[in-house]
């Protein structure tokens, strides 16, 4: 790739602002609440955009375009039924407890509602997960910088060996994220997430515009794609008739209910943004405001995937990324998506069926190179880098809070002063980033370890929403019930995974390690059903164990359980200004989108 001075200049401006925000906020960080909860002073619209931006990490931008290129517009299910309903639910029904209870983190809510062991289980598994997620973000970003040859020229000029580009990229990204969080805490992370939100939009809108214009608009693009790529629901009746290999029930229950509510309603990474809001009203609005851009993101992140496969196959490619395949007679990629290359042999990777595997993750990077001239290219690159960094920062701020409040203050030093906690928070920020660095390097060495960890996290996460649902809406649920339910749910997920296998997959990380008794039509179907089993196990076991254990003291549930909490009253506000009206509008718009892309 040929970067010009202008591209470097645009990138430099971005980095100056990112760090500048941290410096500007430093003097406001006086208490631990300032650092971990942004002083609970963030207006709704900022919290809302940060809510969506923290989630807009690496796997979102790169991964959703990749899936779009593979499966078509039906991937928007991950947005329209896999996010919006849950975001509305957490805003309207759960925020009164999260925000109202004054809990400082999600694990702390579990401590207030249930008991210490339930909090400990959640806090520790969450802390480990955030470190690895931010490590994976770093790793993916460094890989991308390497593939795009961003620093090649610089390194060559300084005569530093090219293999250090990877390490350099990881270190630089870590230092920048460390810098702005260390200085300005959650406020700084939130402000940067908002900045990154606008940048991502500014970088991707022209990309989608140029791509669609080039292909002759939406209709023109669809003519070059299989019929199923344009529909999200047609063929969902049976796994055999849609590209995802999932049936409508598994999709609605597995993705739309268990996975999506489990993430949006219980993951402290996103909930933290709403907890930082300046009032109950703002906290309730945070996920609702976030839902509006969320429902339109498919057009920014999935459509580029469609454009990438709809373009003519490249024979004599232009961008650096294709160079590896130049010289072959026949185009080996699809559209502008190149084949996956085996780094050792320099030959394309061929799967068991004899087809060349495609590197779908390069859909967006290649599209940037394809359409953007110098100048705009710099902007496109920072949009991409911004998405990685906001994902990383989101994990780091969630980690330092959970570590400080739920691990340090709970188990290590119970009587710590607020000043001391603020210091611990800064140290935890450094610690979290160092651990992520470590995780990123582990990922380079042992790819399988990452697969395994992600699997374990999926098992731990799947049942969580059952615990919260019962905790918030059933006052009889007990601590013993919640804890045994979580264990049962995790175990059920592992068992189900161990006993089933997606069609055509080998026994191992894909499942079947306990002997395969059921075959799913696709990996997606398997993961949805793993979630459904896990959730059901947790739900049932929590109820049964709760009924045989001592009921909680009602007085202690005030503000934590639906029937024991005064509802936020909006009686004096005009109906259209209430969060409920906003929620209904959001759901209505989502229904319209589903119908348009039926």
């Amino acid at each position, binding site marked *: 790739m040929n970067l010009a001075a*202008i591209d470097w200049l645009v990138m430099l401006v971005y980095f100056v602002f990112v760090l500048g925000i941290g410096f500007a*906020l430093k003097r406001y960080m006086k208490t631990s609440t300032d650092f971990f909860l942004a002083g609970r002073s963030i207006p709704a619209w900022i919290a809302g955009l940060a809510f969506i931006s923290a989630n807009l990490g690496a796997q979102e931008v790169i991964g959703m375009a990749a899936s779009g290129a593979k499966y078509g517009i039906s991937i928007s299910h991950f947005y329209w039924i896999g996010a919006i309903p849950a975001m509305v639910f957490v805003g309207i029904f759960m925020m*009164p407890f999260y925000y109202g209870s004054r809990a400082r983190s999600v694990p702390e809510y579990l401590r207030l509602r249930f008991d210490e062991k339930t909090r400990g289980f959640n806090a520790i598994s969450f802390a480990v997960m955030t470190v690895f997620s931010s490590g994976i973000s770093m790793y993916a970003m460094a890989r991308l910088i390497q593939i795009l040859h961003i620093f090649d020229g610089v390194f060559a000029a300084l005569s530093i060996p090219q293999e250090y580009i990877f390490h350099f990229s990881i270190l630089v990204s870590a230092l920048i994220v460390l810098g702005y969080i260390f200085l300005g805490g959650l406020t700084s992370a939130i402000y940067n997430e908002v900045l990154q939100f606008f940048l991502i939009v500014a970088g991707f809108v022209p990309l989608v515009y140029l791509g669609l214009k080039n292909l002759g608009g939406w209709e023109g693009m669809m003519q070059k794609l299989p019929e199923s790529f344009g529909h999200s629901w047609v063929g969902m009746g049976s796994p055999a008739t849609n590209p995802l290999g999932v049936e409508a029930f598994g999709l609605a229950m597995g993705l739309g209910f268990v996975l999506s509510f489990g993430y949006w309603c219980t993951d402290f990474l996103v909930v933290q943004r709403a907890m930082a809001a300046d009032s109950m009203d703002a906290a309730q609005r945070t996920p609702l405001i976030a839902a509006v851009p969320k429902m339109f993101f498919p057009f920014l992140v999935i459509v580029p995937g469609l454009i990438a496969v709809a373009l003519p196959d490249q024979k004599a490619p232009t961008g650096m990324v294709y160079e590896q395949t130049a010289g072959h007679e026949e185009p080996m990629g699809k559209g502008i998506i190149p084949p996956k290359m085996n780094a050792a042999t320099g030959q394309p990777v061929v799967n068991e069926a004899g087809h060349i595997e495609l590197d779908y993750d390069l859909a967006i990077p290649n599209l940037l190179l394809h359409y953007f001239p110098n100048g*705009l290219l710099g902007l496109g690159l920072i949009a991409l880098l911004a998405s990685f960094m906001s994902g990383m920062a989101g994990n780091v701020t969630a980690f330092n809070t959970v570590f400080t409040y739920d691990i340090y203050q709970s188990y290590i030093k119970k009587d710590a002063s607020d000043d001391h906690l603020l210091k611990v928070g800064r140290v935890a920020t450094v610690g979290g980033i160092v651990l992520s660095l470590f995780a990123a390097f582990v990922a380079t060495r042992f790819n399988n370890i990452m697969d395994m960890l992600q699997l374990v996290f999926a098992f731990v996460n799947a049942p969580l929403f059952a615990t919260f649902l019962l905790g918030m809406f059933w006052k009889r649920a007990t601590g013993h019930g919640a804890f045994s339910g979580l264990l049962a749910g995790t175990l059920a997920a592992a068992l189900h995974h161990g006993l089933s296998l997606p069609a055509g997959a080998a026994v191992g990380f894909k499942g079947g390690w306990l002997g395969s008794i059921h075959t799913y039509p696709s990996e997606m179907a398997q993961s949805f059903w793993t979630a459904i089993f896990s959730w059901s196990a947790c739900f049932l076991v929590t109820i049964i164990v709760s009924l045989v254990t001592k009921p909680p003291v009602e007085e202690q549930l005030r503000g934590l359980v639906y029937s024991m909490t005064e509802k936020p009253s909006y009686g004096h506000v005009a109906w259209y200004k209430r969060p409920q009206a906003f929620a209904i509008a959001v759901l209505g718009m989502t229904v319209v989108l589903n119908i348009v892309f039926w």
Partner: protein
Amino acid sequence: MGLDIRMPIGLMFVIIGVLLVAYGFISDPAIYERSLGMNVNVIWGSVMLVFGIVMTVLGKIGAKNPPPASADAAPAGGRAAH
């Protein structure tokens, strides 16, 4: 918090917008072949510039008329549980 986020966002968009527009005028037209013949640096740079100015102005207006203290700003809902 003492810093209005609209100011840095606005300022950054203004600077990047100006950079892109300026580069669009001095750059070799041949580089716009890949962007379908459109000088996207000038076009998109101007859009970013306008957005940046709007953000900055909004931030300035916000600074002149600070919102009432948060207790009054959001009477709805209040603090449900204590």
